[in-house]
């Protein structure tokens, strides 16, 4: 039992666990809509795009949070704006932008001597969360979760049938940008835990695992949150006892949960079958597009 309680004697571990729980809940809740709206690659683009913002803020001695937030929001709005031109495919854009932003970030950091700080930007350092960071994480998470709760009904409709949403007068463009904005917030918070490279994993993996187990949106969100929190806390324990990188440990923990859920699901349910006019019916089992 003391294996579980031992780490808690340290103030920085207690702070890290609290941060991990909050970040896990936020990533999973928003990640649910990210996955269902097939925006997982957009999340990937945004997480990588934070790097130049982080580096510039670091070089100027400003707030890393603010730097990352500005870079991600600008990227999100930029992708949203450019993809309105139908000749610029959104997936090409999100394949392109993160690499450019990432290269820019590395270019900037290569002008300095320190690569130790680059490591924590890339891979996160949840064990180094300060009280100030924690307050910011709480604030951003509270605002995002309240927004998610208030617009839950609209997000549902906007995701399942955006055209119908538009015909009843919903401001769908505004909602699209809104989701991108809150995704940027979430990414910035997630970076604290697992870094720019791995944040997308925290948005997507717990949700993917939850999707395997349920057909109900509400249940799916709750399960995603449980998986994300388990991964975050579990990763911190692994990191504490093995001395491994905290961000990577969290992501590997999430991947293990997904693997376990997948095996349990495969053993207990039959595989998808062809029904309804020979069309492959994917049912609740897959996340892929047709």
């Amino acid at each position: 039992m003391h294996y579980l309680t031992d780490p808690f004697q340290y103030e920085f571990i207690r702070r890290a666990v609290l941060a991990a729980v909050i970040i896990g809940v936020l990533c999973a809740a928003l990640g649910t809509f990210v996955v269902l709206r097939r925006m997982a690659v957009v999340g990937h683009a945004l997480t990588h795009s934070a790097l130049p913002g982080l580096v510039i803020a670091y070089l100027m001695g400003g707030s890393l949070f603010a730097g990352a937030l500005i870079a991600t929001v600008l990227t999100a709005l930029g992708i949203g704006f450019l993809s309105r031109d139908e000749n610029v495919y959104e997936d090409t854009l999100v394949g392109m932008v993160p690499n450019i932003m990432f290269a820019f970030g590395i270019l900037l950091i290569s002008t300095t001597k320190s690569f130790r700080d680059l490591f924590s930007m890339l891979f996160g350092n949840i064990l180094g969360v300060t009280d100030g960071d924690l307050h910011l994480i709480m604030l951003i998470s509270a605002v995002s979760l309240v927004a998610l709760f208030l617009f839950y009904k609209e997000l549902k409709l906007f995701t399942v049938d955006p055209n119908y949403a538009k015909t009843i007068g919903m401001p769908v463009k505004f909602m699209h940008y809104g989701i991108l904005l809150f995704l940027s917030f979430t990414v910035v918070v997630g970076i604290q835990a697992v870094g720019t490279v791995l944040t997308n994993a925290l948005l997507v993996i717990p949700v993917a695992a939850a999707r395997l187990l349920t057909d109900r949106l509400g249940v799916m969100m709750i399960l995603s949150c449980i998986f994300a929190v388990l991964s975050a806390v579990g990763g911190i324990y692994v990191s504490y006892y093995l001395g491994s990188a905290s961000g990577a440990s969290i992501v590997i923990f999430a991947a293990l949960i997904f693997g376990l859920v997948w095996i349990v699901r495969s053993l207990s349910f039959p595989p998808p079958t062809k029904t309804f006019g020979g069309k492959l019916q994917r049912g609740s089992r897959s996340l892929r597009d047709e």
Partner: protein
Amino acid sequence: MKFPYCQHRHRPPDPKAPALEIQGLGVSYSSEEKFALRDFDISVPAGSNLALVGPNGAGKSTLFKAICGLLPIRQGHIRVFGHPLAACHHRVVYLPQRSEIDWYFPISVLDLVVMGRYVYLGWFNRPRKSDIEIARHALKEMNVLDLVDRQISKLSGGQQQRVLIARALTQNADLLLLDEPLNAVDASTRQTVAEVLHKIKAQGKTVIVATHYYNQEEGRYDKAIYLKDGHKCII
């Protein structure tokens, strides 16, 4: 407190105006220069039942999408019960082709059908008991009340169509735009749809149906409009 989705206030219908009036309508998809619909005029009196006939690509869906605000209007204007669409979103419902819905979204049939009430609820208000009753009633009319708790990915083609029509009925609109409601569905669904359309007409609502099957259904409509290459051919 109500917070409608559209800033414009919903206005009562103008009793003298036709259900739908279109003048000189030109519509194109944003990236294309070519008009998908051009110089289109029509006036549909309230309570009529119209068939919109034409081959694929003739502009049937384009016309519907323009009427319900999914496509920007390049030329001309559209009035619904005497008002621009923004003043009467709740009076127009568009039944899309089934492929436009994400059927793998994890919600139940009832959740999807209740969405037909959102236009009345607006921001922040959750569906009430009365909204759920209306949705259940619509499902009953479409003979699919037994599917109420089913996940929408587990529906057959005919069931998907019935559920979508149930959502359209739930909105209780006065102008219904049905895009190929009978396309690729089983005989019993076709029968149910025909009966429901008959009922809707008896309630004095205006229905426009885009269809491939006009020859078999001729008797059901007051009038047919033929579309070809974005033009109206014969009336």
